[in-house]
């Protein structure tokens, strides 16, 4: 997300600049980023300072007391400066004061915590933008505000709660600690090298003493040569270090939990596309069924009735036959509509919920089927529908392919999860990779984050288990 409009931010401009200007700019930018680093170090210090101070005080008191105890415990205690009786209460008092100080420090930290955390987040935001603009490394992407923070202003505790539960806070703290401890190395290195080189250049002129490790030999031409190479190395490394810093910031400041989110987004995009496809295919099927079925029959009925109307005076017997024909056509149209409705959303599912709808399925199943259902309430309608059609398809599969004499359907709800098992004593060998039916069920369940497991060794038995996470939507209303 590099913005080409900000001054000199794009990689293209870097490339066009002369080497010296680019390197000087990079060095200056590194120093600018170092300014941000110092601000971050200040915030980090403010976060831990009260506790550090109190800790140091307690440490001091404890060491003193330990020393005093050690002195008083020596055999020649007479030689001590403070008599032990005088030391004891004094030290205890100081310890108490220190504990109070520690508590006070903690309280101050707690009081400042939301503001410090928000300041750190603001600094992280600024660093992310500046580092991305200046280094040419694309920014890791926009960060969402912490949950709830869209709505300003809120009470202290709610702000603290939002900040502490936001995974980005841990990310911010990790970043600011690493940045403070290690970030200064790349940021100051080029400038440091250039300064060293300039010192080597100017020292002989100004007659200043020159530090020996950097400038061995100390002869003026050598000094100049070494000074020039320091400056060159500093300038040469600056753009490279700037990009490295930009990359490190990109990794460290990436939106929290991005990996999981990416995987989740992929899953959702795929299942959404499949759900839309399935929905569209269903719509087309319904449209076709209505068009070829009930609609066509109604048209035919209209024509038959019209013919009957024309015949009714001249030939009542023929008209009567046509009327009977029209009635039969209406019966067939009704039957087709009924079957269609059953395929869209079975009325018994709407009436009674999943358990009774599957019971009705089991009653219609040409095999011996047994149902064990334990649902404490109604499930969300889409889940009910998906589970119902999955069971319907599985029972049809068993009847068609399994050569089974008995099936068992098991439906229960446990720990926020609907579990449906369909087992038969048939010949086995069902393979989700080959059967489009099983694959279709799997796809439909995936839209609810549901999963299906098929165990079907050759020779049987076949056991299909499905799990759909869902919440119960209402209490049980029918008791049958």
């Amino acid at each position: 997300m590099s913005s080409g409009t900000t001054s000199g931010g794009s990689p293209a401009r870097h490339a066009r600049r002369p080497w010296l200007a680019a390197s000087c700019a990079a060095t200056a930018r590194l120093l600018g980023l170092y300014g941000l680093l110092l601000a971050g170090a200040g915030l980090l210090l403010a976060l831990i300072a009260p506790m550090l101070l109190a800790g140091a005080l307690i440490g001091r008191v404890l060491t003193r007391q330990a020393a005093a105890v050690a002195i008083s415990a020596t055999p020649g205690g007479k030689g001590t400066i403070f008599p032990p009786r005088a030391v004891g209460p004094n030290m205890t008092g100081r310890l108490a004061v220190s504990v109070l100080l520690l508590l006070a420090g903690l309280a101050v930290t707690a009081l400042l915590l939301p503001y410090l955390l928000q300041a750190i987040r603001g600094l992280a935001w600024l660093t992310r933008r500046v580092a991305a603009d200046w280094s040419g490394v694309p920014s890791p992407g926009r960060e969402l505000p912490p949950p709830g923070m869209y709505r300003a202003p809120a009470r202290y505790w709610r702000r603290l709660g939002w900040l502490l539960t936001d995974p980005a806070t841990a990310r911010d703290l990790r970043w600011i600690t690493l940045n403070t401890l290690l970030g200064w190395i790349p940021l100051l290195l080029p400038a440091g090298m250039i300064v060293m080189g300039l010192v080597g250049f100017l020292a002989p002129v100004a007659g200043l003493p020159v530090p020996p490790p950097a400038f061995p030999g100390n002869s003026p031409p050598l000094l100049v040569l070494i000074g020039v190479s320091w400056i060159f190395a500093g300038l040469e490394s600056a753009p490279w270090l700037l990009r490295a810093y930009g990359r490190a910031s990109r990794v460290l400041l990436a939106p929290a939990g991005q990996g999981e989110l990416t995987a989740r987004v992929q899953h959702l995009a795929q299942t959404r596309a499949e759900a839309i496809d399935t929905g569209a295919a269903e719509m087309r099927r319904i449209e076709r069924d209505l068009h070829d079925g009930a609609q066509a029959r109604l048209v035919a009925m209209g024509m038959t009735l019209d013919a009957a109307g024309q015949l009714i005076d001249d030939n009542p017997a023929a008209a009567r036959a046509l009327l009977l024909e029209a009635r039969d056509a209406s019966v067939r149209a009704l039957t087709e509509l009924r079957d269609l409705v059953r395929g869209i959303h079975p009325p018994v599912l709407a009436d009674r919920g999943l358990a009774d709808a599957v019971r009705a399925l089991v009653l219609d199943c040409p095999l011996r089927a047994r149902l064990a259902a334990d649902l404490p309430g109604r499930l969300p309608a889409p889940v009910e529908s998906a589970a119902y059609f999955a069971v319907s398809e599985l029972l049809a599969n068993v009847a068609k392919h399994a050569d089974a004499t008995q099936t068992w359907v098991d439906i229960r709800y446990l720990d926020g999860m609907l579990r449906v098992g369909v087992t038969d004593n048939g010949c086995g060998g069902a393979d989700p990779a080959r059967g489009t039916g099983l694959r279709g069920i799997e796809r439909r369940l995936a839209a609810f984050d549901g999963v299906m497991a098929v165990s079907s060794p050759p020779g049987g038995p076949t056991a299909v288990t499905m799990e759909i996470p869902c919440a119960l939507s209402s209490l049980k209303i029918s008791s049958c």
Partner: protein
Amino acid sequence: MRVVIAEDLFLLRDGLARMLEAHGLEVTGSVDNGADLLAAVSAARPDVAVVDVRLPPTFTDEGLRAALAARRAAPGLPVLVLSQYVEQLYARELLAEGHGGIGYLLKDRVMDSAQFVDAVRRVAAGGTAMDPEVISRLLVRSAGDGTLAALSRREREVLGVMAEGRSNAAIAQRLVITERAVAKHTASIFLKLGLQPSDDDNRRVLAVLAYLSAEQPGPAD
């Protein structure tokens, strides 16, 4: 014969009332919801109630529950339940009490008024009227698991029509055989299935339906 109708669609309610009156039945009440049905039944004391499964306010199986409630309020009240679709599950619930005077028909059946009025009269008289679709599904399922393997094809046909709640005469007329032949088949069926023979149409139907559903899993909970 006095009838109470519970049906929420005005056109159907009106049409039903006119059809029944045209066939000489007296419609003493026509209501559009379950609560009114209970009130009408206790006020009018009808001989039979014709009830739609879907009624307001829930438009689910309100009518079925109202019918069962009406039967509890007025024990032995014959009830004919109409529905756009039939479920064995609901048929079993209606038949669960084991008394007669129960009908469960597709709404389509009102188009054949003579047959429909016959079903109403049969239910009012304490008989049974099961929709052929319920029975055919019951038979498909029973054929699938071998329950009816011992019966001949003709015997299965007789069994199917009998399960709808028809008398021997009606079965004979439907299958175009003599009543004697029907009686012979019936005796044979009862013998093969190990049921107590009965001359009473109603008890006979209940025995057959119970037998056909016996191999089914009962409600598991």
